[in-house]
């Protein structure tokens, strides 16, 4: 990013910092007991202590939901992106469907999944299965319905991000590969997969961070215990016992930390995905022409090939 473009972004960056940082500061201060609704501040980790055994369960549940939903969404999204990019007749329909799925609110999606997959739901009725004989997808021992809903909606997001990132240059690269004698498998493994990895990684990170903080799907489709962190935080926040607020803030802070750790780890990995891809890519990826890493790699590659 040039200094000039950074200067242009200053108002937006300031607005984001103002909202996100004051908010985060208030939540962290509440969790640390510095921000009581009444009485003197009592700094300490009482918020986390009050969470007690719920914290480990909530972390485990959050990670289970976020990791499995993100993985499924990434794989399915990549597949859908491939269909959209294939320029077959069905690709436009699939593209329109993906855009439509993106427009469905998670709340509506979760309610629909509940009507469809619950033990007395439509799938059980159409299949003629007794409610007791239907698998426990909704509110069962594993968050299956929650993961399915999140993966379904987020796969559309991953697909559209990948399609946008590969852009028009994708067709040219495939043609070049064909001309050079690459078969369908090679075109997939040597062109599509490596060129789409950075976009898939970035989109998956957004999906993961979103799911770590998302409330409504797990609240509607999950079981009573253990709850993922946002559901735990919201329940404690709504408690008539106002002293539960530090605990609620502690749960929210834990979730934010989890998202932060994941973001730092993935953001550190994405450039290496790009550099790993660039020398091998057949054509220069058009939409990432501005990426310094890939540019430098391409330039240095072309320089070194010169006598």
């Amino acid at each position: 990013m040039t200094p000039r473009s950074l200067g242009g972004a200053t108002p937006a960056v300031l607005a984001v910092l103002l909202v996100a940082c004051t908010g985060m500061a208030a939540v962290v201060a509440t969790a640390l007991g510095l921000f009581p609704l009444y009485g003197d501040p009592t700094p300490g980790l009482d918020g986390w202590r009050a969470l007690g055994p719920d914290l480990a369960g909530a972390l485990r549940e959050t990670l289970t939901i976020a990791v499995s939903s993100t993985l499924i969404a990434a794989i399915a999204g990549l597949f859908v992106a491939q269909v959209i990019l294939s320029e077959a007749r069905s690709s436009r329909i699939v593209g329109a469907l993906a855009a439509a799925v993106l427009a469905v609110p998670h709340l509506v999606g979760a309610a629909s999944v509940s009507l469809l997959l619950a033990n007395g739901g439509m799938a059980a009725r159409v299949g003629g299965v007794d409610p007791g004989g239907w698998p426990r997808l909704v509110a069962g021992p594993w968050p299956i319905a929650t993961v399915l809903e999140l993966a379904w909606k987020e796969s559309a997001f991953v697909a559209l991000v990948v399609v946008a990132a590969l852009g028009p240059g994708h067709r040219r690269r495939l043609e070049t590969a064909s001309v050079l004698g690459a078969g369908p498998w090679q075109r997939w493994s040597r062109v599509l997969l490596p060129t789409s990895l950075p976009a898939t990684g970035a989109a998956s990170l957004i999906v993961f961070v979103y799911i770590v903080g998302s409330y409504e799907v797990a609240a509607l489709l999950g079981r009573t215990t253990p709850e993922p962190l946002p559901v735990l935080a919201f329940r404690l926040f709504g408690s008539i016992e106002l002293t539960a607020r530090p605990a609620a803030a502690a749960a929210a802070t834990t979730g934010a930390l989890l998202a932060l750790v994941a973001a730092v780890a993935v953001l550190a990995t994405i450039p290496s995905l790009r550099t790993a891809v660039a020398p091998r890519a057949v054509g220069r990826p058009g939409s990432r022409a501005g990426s310094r890493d890939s540019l430098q790699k391409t330039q240095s590659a072309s320089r070194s090939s010169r006598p």
Partner: protein
Amino acid sequence: MRRPRRSSSKLSAQFGSAHFGSAHFGSAQFGSSLLGSGLLGSGLLGLALAASACAAPGNSDAASGTTASEQPWEQIVADAQGQTVDLWMYGGDDRANAYVDDVLAPAAKELGVTLRRVPVADTKDALQRVLAERAAGTTDGEVDLVWVNGDNFATGREADAWLCGWADTLPNREYVAEDDPLVASDFGVAVDGCESPWHKAQFTFAYDATRVDDPPTSLTGLLDWAREHPGRFTYPAPPDFTGSVFVRQALYAVSGGAAEVPSRFDQSTFDDLAPPLWDALTQVAPDLWREGTTYPRDSVALDRLFADGEVDFTMTYGPATLTELVADGTFPSTTKVLPLDEGTVGNASFLAIPASSGDSAGARVVANLALSPQQQAAKADPDTWGQFTVLDLDLLDAADRDLFAQLPQSPVVPPYEVLSRNAGPELSSDWVAPLDEGWRRQVLGQR
């Protein structure tokens, strides 16, 4: 007269601060409610708090300004002319909405008052608006009337957010029995004319007669039935409102009756009474729906399980809905109300006027109208809303009494006299949080 402070209660300790810092308290409550909506919301929390610190007026004398002025009723009616009253109420009950829009509002219009219904997802939302307005020193607030009871009323009372001393002076108050305990105190909090009764409710169990051959007659009998019929019974998970009532009802049953549980909370009584309750509920848990590893989220989720035939019992604090659910085919036509020998807990709900209301005269006219025999009878009609009246029929004249006698009988729900037989009082709202939290730790945590 102020209620004595409950020294053992954390809640009162917090709201105690409202007496000298209600302004700050109110907006903190309002702002931080946004925290639940995520990081963005908590950003607003910070802004709201910052704003409240600047804007909060020094209103240490605010507590004194909440008693309604004593005016002749004719004066109040005259002041009310042309006022628009915003009634904030839970918006999730279609028949409640229809009653207010189609019956109450037109009647108010004839008295010169425009009644506007403001639906909220939870009465807490209305309360938080009231507390925020109170904090800002508003005298022309958006909230003129709230359908309220229980801890929301108690919270507003502690923060001095309600207009008081007006409800007993309404002309139609003469039809309400003076010694009616449900109307005199609201979940253990003295009403003191700070809210006007609207209707009564009775916690009610229902079952499907074709699936239950041997309906139990007591709550402990119901728990025994659940153990004999694995997977056929469950209850919503506290802190859900209905699940929370079930746990209180179970506390009465396990403790040997409502008389054994003092309405006022104290820790040592709780420590004596709670362990047998947790034992009873833990023992029955493996035989509940899904082996007690999970519970329905709320009464709607339980109703769905009942409608789908996954469980054989459901429960509600609003038995009026049973009539409708059976009529539209959601519940089987063989749904019956389960009477318990020991009776169930009952409560009344009320209309309260916030101290910050700008149209309090109009609100008083509407509250009086809502208490009239004509409106109470229309509301009690099972085809309209089916809410039980707060009036004492013996105090009505013959013509008005006839209005109630002519109401159609619900095919499902027995009359209030039957339903409320041996009714127990609600525990004070201080009991609710320890019971809910104890249930999560001791019953849910054991599975």
